[in-house]
């Protein structure tokens, strides 16, 4: 048997490696025949194309490699903002669906069942072509309370921008967060040991709120200043502008992923055994304490792994930006292929970007899983 297994392994290895060599030789042959360049030397050449948006400074004189980096940062930008908003939407939808109010729960159910059963690409088409492209021109922009302006050029909203004293204030803010966590832990520990009420959550929250507030007045000038979009002759100035591409992609991803996250969270909460809740109540914990100290920690164990994979899905789905022209890494990569060939190396880079993201995510997830896993007998 041993011998047979070894033979099987060697044969399969030879077959796979043989196939790989065959493919790679074909690529090299094809590249030679068509004069394609398989190296990475092109990355330093000037890109020559503009990009609709970038987190860091970008202009067409920058190199191809730099353009790809800009695209990668754009992917990260829409993914991170999307993950935060989708979690909020998902949490609200999940709690609504579990609500004892029949109407609220039905509305959430309809949202989840509708959105999950329509392809994301169709939804993106609706958001971009049917909604954002159909907004009025800048001059007749729709005004929503906020003030939030919607026009073909995108979404303009009131925003805050940091001033000179921002860094000092941010430090105070971070110190407040750290201190509130430490105080919460110490007080909770003390309460568990002695049985005397120390109100750890209330005091922790108080520190969390008071520190930044006091800091705001201590640093002299206000660290953040509001800026309101104002209509000039041709366009808005001030405020925060979201391009229609970014806004449509973000809205589509958030609404779509939110529906999936809602089901993940709901399943997690439902998975908490009734006995745990009853036991916590019989110990005399209040409703909010039961939720915070018993239900949520237990539910998190179930929620986190599928939640992370939803985050990863959102990141991967952001590659659909190609249909609406948001300059993510995939879009930039395809532009380079269209302009300069190099299909093979560009694709290797794009895949490496996504693979890197998912490897990092699964690495973090494994650490977390090991920490919270039940000790089995």
């Amino acid at each position, binding site marked *: 048997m041993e011998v047979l297994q070894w033979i099987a392994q060697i044969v399969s290895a030879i077959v796979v490696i043989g196939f790989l060599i065959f493919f790679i030789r074909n690529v090299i042959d094809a590249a030679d025949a068509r004069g394609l360049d398989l190296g990475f030397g092109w990355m330093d050449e000037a890109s020559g194309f503009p990009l609709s948006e970038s987190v860091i400074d970008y202009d067409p004189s920058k190199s191809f490699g730099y353009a790809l980096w800009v695209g990668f940062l754009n992917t990260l930008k829409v993914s991170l903002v999307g993950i935060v908003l989708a979690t909020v939407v998902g949490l609200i939808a999940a709690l609504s669906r579990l*609500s004892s109010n029949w*109407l609220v729960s039905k509305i959430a159910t309809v949202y989840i069942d509708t959105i999950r059963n329509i392809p994301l690409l169709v939804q993106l088409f609706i958001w971009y072509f049917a909604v954002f492209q159909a907004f009025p021109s800048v001059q007749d922009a729709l005004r929503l309370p906020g003030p939030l302006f919607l026009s073909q050029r995108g979404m303009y909203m009131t925003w805050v921008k940091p001033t000179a004293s921002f860094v000092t204030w941010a430090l105070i803010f971070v110190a407040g967060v750290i201190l509130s966590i430490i105080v919460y832990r110490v007080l909770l520990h003390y309460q568990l040991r002695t049985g005397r009420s120390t109100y750890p959550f209330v005091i922790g929250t108080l520190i969390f709120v008071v520190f930044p507030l006091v800091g705001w007045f201590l640093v002299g000038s206000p660290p953040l200043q509001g800026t309101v979009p104002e209509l000039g002759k041709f366009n808005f100035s001030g405020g925060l502008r979201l391009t229609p591409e970014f806004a449509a992609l973000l809205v589509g991803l958030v609404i779509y992923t939110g529906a999936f996250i809602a089901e993940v969270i709901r399943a997690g909460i439902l998975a908490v055994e009734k006995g745990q809740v009853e036991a916590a109540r019989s110990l005399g914990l209040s409703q909010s304490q039961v939720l915070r100290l018993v239900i949520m920690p237990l539910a998190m164990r179930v929620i986190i792994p599928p939640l992370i994979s939803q985050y990863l899905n959102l990141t991967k789905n952001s590659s659909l930006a190609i249909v609406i022209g948001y300059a993510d890494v995939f879009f930039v990569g395809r532009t380079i292929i269209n302009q300069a060939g190099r299909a093979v190396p560009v694709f290797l880079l794009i895949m490496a970007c996504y693979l890197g993201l998912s490897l990092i995510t699964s690495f973090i997830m494994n650490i977390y899983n090991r920490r919270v896993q039940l000790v089995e007998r």
Partner: protein
Amino acid sequence: MTSASETIVRPPSGPGAIYWLRKNLFSGWFNTILTVISLVAIVVVVGGLLRWAITVADWSPVVENLKLYAVGPFPSEELWRVWLIVYMVSLLMGISAGKWRGTVLTFAMGLGAAYLILSLFPMSLEYLPLNTRLRLAGNVLVLAAGFVIGLKLPIKSLWIAIAFGASFVLTLILLGGFRNAAVLPRVETGQWGGLLLTFLLAAVGIVASFPIGVGLALGRQSSLPVVKALCVLFIEAVRGVPLVTILFMASIILPLFLPEGLRIDRVLRAMIGMTLFSAAYMAENVRGGLQAIPSGQYEAAKAVGLTGIQTTSLIVLPQALRVVIPAIVGQFIALFMDTTLAIIVGLLELLAVGKAVLNSNPQWLLLDMEVYLFIAAVFWVFTYSMSFASRRVEVAVGLGKR
């Protein structure tokens, strides 16, 4: 969440509507506020949508192009092939409904109702011609005839499965035809489109990815380190990247990988991409099932003297696959929706037809909402009924219960 004390068992007679309202909508001031806000939201959203759909919306790009949405640019004189396939599927659905009843019957009845509704749809004969309506109605009869056959004749389940497999192959032959043939002339895959192509991409993807996925899952569980490493590498690499990149690989890079002279059709390349993508996910689903098999099963199989292959094929796989039916159906649904991505590599599936229709007539320039909502509705009907059926099957085979 309702606390334990609130879950009161309703007396059989029922305490009436007022009690129900008070308990579910107006228990306490907070709930009352929520109810009022929800009612206002429903009236505004649903009312606004209905008013828009009836008075403002212009549905002409949808109703004037029903044939395109259904089959794309498939030549009109060869449309009988598509109808033949539809009849074939109706007959098989009818027979399986008669044989197994239960959820399959519900599904077949839904299909029949859909045929009837479409054939009687209040719409101008110009856009939904009489013969199309008659053929749709004819499908109801075929469905019913199949049901009687399945009910009366003792047909073995295996034969029905084989018939389904054969109909799949026959479908591909019928659609493609043969080069230089008089009876079934070749219809290039570039002329396949619309819902037809959407269905084909999904069906080929799921059928082809199933055996590959099972193989990969077994390989991943195998005790041979080289085989295991190769399988893990493939699964993780494919699952780590978006489907769009795989499709692009298949459409741009794959032709480079192959030797000169060997050219693969564009639709086929997309199918290969979808299959490889789906196989990696399928492998993880099946692995979940394999891990659910208690080790006692392996030990028992070994004790009876079964070989490794026998243990896998007779004991482990049948149990493992049964556990993962819901996951596989879920993946089928996901793949069905993912077929829309084929638009990115230039295939004319349903969504691409919608885009082409909008570009075909300047009068329809701003009617994106109507077209895409229609497409969304079509997808919703199919995916929702599939997930409904899968939930019913889950209950029927008693999954999730110990």
